[in-house]
């Protein structure tokens, strides 16, 4: 239930609704979309990335001398969890064709395709298989399927959304493989939303010029992820899943090829070595680093671990200066602050409004532009509302959707959202939601080509951990597509690569070399990475943990 002081503003939202509905029905944009210059202006002034302190110089490694996101520079300029001399690499604990690091969507897709191409794999995952951002995507997956759409149009939309910084070969792979991914997932048993004639039910997302958002109600990621997981578990002889056993370092061979990794059993606290002819990093993003102090939509394990492993081994990162804030994170009630409110709400006609119940931005600008416009409306124009705990927010008018699409539409198509709010006595079919940008996605990552290869032979990266596909801003629905397209590609090309690989002597020398580089650069820190888990232990508790020894955030 909203506090009383918001009721007046809620009434204004009610009062303007009919007029805004008529505007929506007119077929014209409900608010003028921004020009290129307007977009640039609002981004420069209000997007968190453009604040000076949001970036800093990195002093070591392949991207030395570049300005990157401060929190990422911090985890890269950190010590390893391991001492290389303690490992006997001649006797690996596990041997396999492909080590897959991360059990989310990209990892599972890679394992399935690798298996179909004759390769066995080990999936090392920090939490349970499927505990990943892939599970949480609500709104949908882009793919150009309708007759009025085309993969090349999708290409242009993605490029424009990414400010034309995207790597063209990657965007082509993303958009051209899209329709096949829809088909592949359906063959595996994903239940897509469809029209009665069997055609795909599609909606708009921010920055799309054609409706191409395919969904499974608002449990899209959950349906896809559970299907992929189930398929992985149907092949225990080919795919070994190691849960609560994250990879904490890569292993290279004497020729500099990636040859597996060191994994850490978080429960028994043992370390093990995995020898693999190829390695695929599918560790996802970094929302749990709480960049710029933002709340996040991300799952518990999203701590950017893959970036650290790859960077220490010499892999180059791309667009590590760019962070995605999802325009519509919940801000009220406090218990769900930061939670994702799917963009599909705006795809179905939901409108962002200020406290006067007025539109102030086109509802479906690309995410960074939309977010910056929300921040401007709150912080500069002071036309947002503040919650009792001091958070800013603007309204997201969901009841309007019931008028546009028909009564009952929200319950049928947004069960997760309805459920999320009804727990706190807010009925989103009758009342709007209060939203503000929330830390959502790692736009950059390890640089790859369209085969998911990195500059280290035998090291592949797919999904959110990679960089280049989305340029400096990802559009809605392109990450679900990304982890499927590139997860599949990584599985395929890694399986091909291993056929001709004979590994030499395994080494961890790069860890020692990296430590030396840190020393030389005079980086003095007690930071340890990969971070593995965020810490939510209160200071008060920590002060009393007199005999506890922390390695980073873990005891």
């Amino acid at each position, binding site marked *: 239930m909203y506090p009383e002081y918001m009721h007046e*503003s809620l009434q204004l939202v009610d009062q303007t609704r009919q007029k805004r509905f008529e505007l929506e029905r007119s077929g014209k944009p409900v608010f003028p979309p921004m020009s290129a210059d307007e977009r640039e202006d609002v981004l420069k002034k209000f997007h968190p990335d453009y604040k000076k302190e949001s970036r800093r110089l990195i002093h070591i490694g392949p991207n030395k001398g570049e300005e990157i996101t401060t929190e990422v520079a911090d985890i890269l300029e950190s010590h390893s969890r391991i001492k290389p001399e303690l490992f006997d690499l001649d006797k690996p604990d596990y041997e396999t064709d492909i080590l897959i690091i991360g059990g989310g969507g990209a990892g599972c897709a890679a394992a399935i395709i690798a298996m179909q191409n004759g390769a066995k794999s080990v999936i090392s995952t920090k939490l349970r298989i499927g505990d990943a951002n892939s599970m949480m995507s609500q709104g949908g997956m882009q793919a*150009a399927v309708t007759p*009025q759409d085309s993969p090349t149009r999708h290409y242009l939309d993605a490029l424009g959304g990414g400010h034309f910084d995207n790597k063209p070969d990657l965007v082509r792979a993303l958009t051209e493989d899209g329709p096949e991914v829809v088909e592949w997932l359906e063959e595996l048993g994903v239940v897509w939303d469809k029209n009665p004639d069997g055609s795909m039910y599609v909606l708009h997302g921010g920055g799309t010029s054609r409706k191409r958002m395919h969904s499974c109600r608002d449990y899209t990621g959950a349906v896809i992820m559970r299907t992929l997981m189930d398929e992985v578990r149907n092949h225990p002889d080919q795919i070994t899943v190691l849960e609560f056993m994250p990879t904490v370092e890569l292993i290279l061979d004497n020729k500099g090829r990636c040859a597996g990794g060191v994994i850490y059993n978080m429960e028994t606290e043992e370390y093990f070595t995995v020898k693999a002819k190829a390695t695929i990093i599918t560790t996802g993003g970094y929302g749990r680093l709480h960049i710029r102090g933002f709340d996040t939509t991300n799952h518990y394990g999203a701590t950017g671990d893959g970036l650290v492993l790859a960077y220490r081994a010499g892999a180059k990162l791309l667009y590590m200066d760019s962070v995605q804030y999802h325009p519509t994170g919940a801000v009220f009630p406090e218990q769900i602050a930061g939670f994702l409110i799917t963009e599909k709400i705006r795809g179905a006609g939901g409108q962002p409004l200020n406290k006067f119940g007025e539109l102030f931005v086109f509802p479906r600008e690309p995410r960074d532009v939309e977010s910056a416009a929300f921040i401007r409306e709150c912080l500069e124009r002071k036309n947002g509302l503040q919650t009792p705990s001091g958070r800013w927010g603007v309204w997201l008018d969901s009841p309007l959707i019931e008028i546009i699409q028909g009564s009952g539409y929200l319950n049928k198509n947004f069960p997760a959202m309805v459920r999320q709010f009804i727990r706190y006595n807010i009925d989103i079919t009758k009342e709007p939601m209060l939203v503000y940008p929330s830390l959502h996605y790692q736009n950059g990552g390890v640089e790859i080509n369209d085969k998911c290869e990195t500059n280290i032979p035998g090291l592949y990266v797919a999904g959110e951990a990679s960089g280049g596909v989305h340029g400096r801003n990802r559009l809605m629905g392109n990450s679900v597509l990304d982890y499927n397209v590139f997860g599949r590609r990584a599985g395929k090309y890694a399986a091909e690569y291993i056929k001709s690989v004979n590994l030499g002597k395994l080494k961890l020398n790069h860890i020692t070399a990296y430590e030396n580089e840190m020393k030389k650069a005079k980086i003095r820190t007690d930071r340890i990475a990969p971070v593995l888990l965020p810490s939510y232990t209160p200071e008060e508790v920590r002060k009393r943990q007199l005999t506890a020894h922390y390695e980073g955030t873990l005891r």
Partner: protein
Amino acid sequence: MMAKKKKAAPKRAKTARTKKEKAEPKADPKQMVTVYIMGKLHKVPADATIMGAIEYAGYLIKRGAGCREGFCGACATVYRLPGDYKIYTGLACTTLVQEGMWLSQLPVIPAQKPVYDIEKLEPNVTAFQKLYPEIFRCVACNTCTKACPQSLEVMDYIQAAIRGDIEKVMDLSFDCLSCGLCAIRCPAEIVHYNVGLLGRRLYGRYLSRKSPDLEQRLKEVKHRKFDKEYKEFMAMKRDELKKRYYARDTEGTKGE
């Protein structure tokens, strides 16, 4: 009237903020409740979720947290309330604490997951008979439905599976998070969430109507219909691409 509000709202929030910065721990001590985490007494903020309370109390969660937003089902929790004999179930990430709550998370739900080849199953009752014969022991007690933190009609989809009504299994189990609370409470030892997942996969694979547009598009991609335009776009300079991008038309929300 609105003008008044304009000034009032930020003021109110400012005081809340400064309070928050000064006070430690964060919440007002008046708004605390007593809970028993695995039997041990802790004072936690009254408005905390169970997950927030566990972390507030000083536990570092390894098993028992995933998405933290109600999608992954990692945080199945059982609890009792004072003066009440019942066992309640919920997700730690979305359930609020209550005074006197006695709670424990379930780190993992032991459950079998039969291995199968989806290509070799038929979309009818035989699939369930083969993989989950125990569902026919369902006594229709409805305990599973009562245990479901998503308020799904769990028993109804098990009954639908018994009848071989796959569409119904798919529809009723669609929002299932596989938290396993149904399975842990079931007197017939059914693993409901795996039955639902099988039903959904069978529906998607065999019963969902195929999209003619999709078939057409796949043919076009296969015959490299878009090659030429891709090459053209990929060769374009940034300015040229920008022009094309901002000049492109947009389909209406309602569609044609």
